[in-house]
């Protein structure tokens, strides 16, 4: 099966090469681009079959190539959790390439996606250091290729996003470059780096037991992988990058890259876990849960200070990554206290939410691409009434956003319920600290759920319902989405409703990944069965409730329509106190920041918000606009001052960069001499 997957990746890469050659060597050769696209899609399907095969065969599969890299080897191994994420990437990435939300004559986005998917897969599959770092960099470059400074025409900060992306991606990589060699060395083979077998993640680390350095490893793993995953407080790049990048980059970043990073973080932590005592494991759970709750709050705090769809969706990813982390943290707590049912609920909720979030966010960003293609903006203050002009986009966006707002019977609530249930069960089974943490988590998650409802009713309600607020949104259509795009949106919506009504399917799929982790951490078969049955029972009740809701709503709607068929239905303007302004004064509707304004005093602590109101100096003022500026609180209050200070300190070394070649040569010679002396000394 692994060879099928590898074959799929190779075909995709071949598709990327063919597609790019159509854009460079023969400028007008659309047929070449088309062939590359078809090849890429075929590769995605083959890869999906391979990954699904590994997922359901149930055993990890390895691949080792004879080709030795300078200090590494091509060693691949794919277990069930990796296969699950790879299958999801092949699915949503393939669907995005199929729907092609970008301009058809631009091959580079197709190329970027076709390179990104195998690179992400390699990040998960590779077990050796050098191949991993190469794949990790390819992911960063594919993301860069997708952005290449293409904000919307109205954006004034084009290019800032690229910088933020590059800097954040490489700060994350910097932490990994420290962590991963250390992990290789701690893996027990001290000559690994010299002998070319610098293998990672296959064997638990050794020699950290009882050492305080263990927490340094944990911190590096969280900072290194958490930066790309968008875990607070490493999410400072989110606002600038999502604001300036095209919407399909958002789909790739939030739907695919963030999830891969998050899983790699958990996998690295799992490698360190055997060295931890029970109490240390409980503290790791606490750390993850607190980071998750912080991500939830800071994510929504950031979202509610912006009125841009892409930025809101980007911040919502931070929030959902937070929920997933709470699930994993709870799982670790459960393991530490040997409360296996809590552990199982935590892990199952985290994995199920991961799947749900990939689906919902891929749908939402694809729909956003349709909006930006159709209207040229993603500013809620300029949109409105899109449901009528973009019916498929509007309906799909509604399904996706209501899913993330926690509406029943849609998918995201079911996974949150598993985590909630785990938290409730842990109140009486995790000891006093675990209990208090669980209560805190339930309350904060409840608050996060409430804020998510504000965020997503605002997104859908202001963007797609009501009247158009600008000429752009009044005259737009969804032709750019095409037949394929509509089909993909339809399938995503179907999957979201399907998993909401029959969450037991999602639970079963998640369990393929959960059971491996569960046994790895010491769970027994009996405990696993009991936990699975409890979770299945809960999910079956959700089916009952979801179906009851659907049937009752449909029945009531039929009854109401039947009543109206017997009487009369008239059409008229919206109630406006008789002033007749609603239709002629669409800008008077609540929009963006005004919808969130009541919450601003609370969330403005988490973000910098400045509202510039033009002063009213005369009885009949002319038209004026309120301007709202917002920045991420972490960037504004922490990273910006910190980086400025670092820049200032590093400025002391500027004297070296005097432009004198002689000085540079002298410095190089000095370095070489110092290294020679060091070699002689050791």
């Amino acid at each position, binding site marked *: 099966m692994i060879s099928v997957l590898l074959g799929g990746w190779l075909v995709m890469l071949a598709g990327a090469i063919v597609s790019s050659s159509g854009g460079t060597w023969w400028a007008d050769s659309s047929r070449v681009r088309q062939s590359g696209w078809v090849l890429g899609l075929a590769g995605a399907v083959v890869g999906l079959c391979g990954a699904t095969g590994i997922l359901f065969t149930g055993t990890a599969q390895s691949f080792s190539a004879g080709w030795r890299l300078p200090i590494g080897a091509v060693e691949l191994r794919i277990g069930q959790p990796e296969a699950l994420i790879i299958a999801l990437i092949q699915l949503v990435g393939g669907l995005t390439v199929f729907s092609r939300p970008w301009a058809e004559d631009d091959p580079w986005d197709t190329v970027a996606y076709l390179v990104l998917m195998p690179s992400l897969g390699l990040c998960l599959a590779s077990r050796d250091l050098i191949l991993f770092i190469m794949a990790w960099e390819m992911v960063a470059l594919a993301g860069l290729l997708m952005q290449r400074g293409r904000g919307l025409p109205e954006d004034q900060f084009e290019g800032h996003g690229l910088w933020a992306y590059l800097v954040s991606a490489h700060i994350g990589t910097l932490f990994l470059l420290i962590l991963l060699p250390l992990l290789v060395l701690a893996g027990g083979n001290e000559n690994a780096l010299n002998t070319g077998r610098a293998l990672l993640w296959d064997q638990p680390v050794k020699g950290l037991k009882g050492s305080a350095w263990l927490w340094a490893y944990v911190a590096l793993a969280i900072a290194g992988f958490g930066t790309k995953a968008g875990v607070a407080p490493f999410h400072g790049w989110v606002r600038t990058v999502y604001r300036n990048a095209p919407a399909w980059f958002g789909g790739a970043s939030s739907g695919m890259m963030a999830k891969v990073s998050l899983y790699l973080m958990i996998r690295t932590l799992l490698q360190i876990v055997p060295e931890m005592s029970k109490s240390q494991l409980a503290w790791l759970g606490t750390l993850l849960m607190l980071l998750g709750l912080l991500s939830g709050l800071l994510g929504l705090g950031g979202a509610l200070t912006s009125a841009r769809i892409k930025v809101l969706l980007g911040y919502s990813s931070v929030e959902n990554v937070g929920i997933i982390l709470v699930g994993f943290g709870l799982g670790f707590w459960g393991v530490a206290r040997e409360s296996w049912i809590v552990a199982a609920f935590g892990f199952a909720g985290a994995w199920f939410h991961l799947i749900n979030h990939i689906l919902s966010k891929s749908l939402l960003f694809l729909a956003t691409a349709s909006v930006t293609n159709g209207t040229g903006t993603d500013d809620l203050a300029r949109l409105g009434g899109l449901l009528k002009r973009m019916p498929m986009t509007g309906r799909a966006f509604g399904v996706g956003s209501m899913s993330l707002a926690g509406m029943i019977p849609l998918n995201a609530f079911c996974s949150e319920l598993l985590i909630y*249930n785990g938290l*409730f069960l842990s109140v009486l089974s995790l000891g006093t600290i675990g209990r208090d943490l669980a209560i805190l988590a339930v309350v904060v998650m409840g608050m996060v759920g*409430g804020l998510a409802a504000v965020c997503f009713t605002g997104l859908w309600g202001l963007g797609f*319902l009501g009247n158009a607020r600008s000429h752009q949104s009044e005259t737009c259509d969804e032709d750019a989405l095409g037949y394929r795009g509509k089909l993909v949106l339809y399938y995503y919506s179907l999957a979201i409703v399907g998993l909401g009504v029959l969450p037991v399917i999602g639970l079963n799929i998640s369990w393929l990944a959960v059971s491996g982790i569960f046994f790895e951490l010491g769970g027994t078969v009996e405990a696993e069965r009991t936990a699975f049955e409890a979770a299945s029972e*809960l999910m079956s*009740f959700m089916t009952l409730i979801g179906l009851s809701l659907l049937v*009752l709503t449909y029945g009531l709607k039929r009854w109401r329509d039947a009543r109206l068929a017997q009487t009369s*239905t008239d059409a008229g303007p919206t109630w406006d106190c008789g002033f007749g302004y609603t239709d002629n004064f669409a800008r008077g509707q*609540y929009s963006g920041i005004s919808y969130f304004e009541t919450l601003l005093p609370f969330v403005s602590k988490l973000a910098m918000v400045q509202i510039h109101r033009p002063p009213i100096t005369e009885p009949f003022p002319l038209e004026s606009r309120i301007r709202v500026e917002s920045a991420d609180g972490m960037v504004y209050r922490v990273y910006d001052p910190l980086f400025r200070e670092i820049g200032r300190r590093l400025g002391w070394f500027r004297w070296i960069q005097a432009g004198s070649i002689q000085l540079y040569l002298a410095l190089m010679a000095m370095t070489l001499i110092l290294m020679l002396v060091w070699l002689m000394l050791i």
Partner: protein
Amino acid sequence: MESRFWYLWLIHTTAQLGMLLLLPPFFMGLILRLKSIAAGRKGPPLFQPYYDMARLIRKGAVYSTTTSSVFRLGPPLLVSSLVVSGLMIPLGGMPSPIHFSGDLIVVAYVLAISRLAIVLAALDTGSSFEGMGASREITFASLAEPTMFLILISLGLLGHADPNKFGTEWSLTGSLAQMDLITWVHYGPALVPLSFALFVLILLENARVPFDDPTTHLELTMIHEVMILDHSGPDLALMEYGAGMKLMLLTMLLGRILIPHHFDNTLLNFVVALLKTAALCGCVVMVEVGMARLRMKQIPGVLLSALILAALSVVVMLVELGEFQGLPI
């Protein structure tokens, strides 16, 4: 034994559904009547809301040309979500028809659907007023969410007060089935702040004074009423009916906590439950008569007080569970 169980379940479910579907307008009428009496007027007949609904159902509807299918879906979704949550809340002295471990959270989220339905329908009209109402409604609800969850935790903990009695499931039925008057002797210090916090939430969720004034005529001061300005005919009937159902559900829940009762006679159970709900409606009226609506800026402060009360309830509940059940404090 098995057939008797189903027979009983069927009776309780039918009775609960009947009460849930038939009585909401009655309590709305009762509140109106009590308010009128308190203001020195005779007031409308007790069954006036039934007549109003019958009239609205017979009428046609006017839909704004701005609205879409979302607006039309709002009222049916509102009522169906409340009916489903009603099936999970134990209304009389009996277990609820649907109960399972974890239903506490599901009830909170199903109740939230009714809010989403009304907010989205309001935003669909494209009106400044309704957008304002939607913004206020969803914002205050999100601020009240932590209080709601603390109340649920406290109630859930109560469900573990006596594991021999109703298993160890985290459900509303499990918790409330445990309760009898002696529970108040043991857990009173936790139940008092819980009841106050829940009462504040009931006032907020049902758009009553001091958070909202259901009888105001100025759109700028409204929250709930401004969101249903554009509904007419059967849709308005469903909206009003839903509002009554939410009030009845939450007051019955509070009534069950305040004076727990279990009688063997189903009819007696329901009669007592109705009497308690009527008394709580009286309390709502007393608040409405006794104070004016708060300024919008003061509402978060009141919600914070409710949050503190709910947190206090959880802490005291944990301490008392430690005392009576030997759980770690």
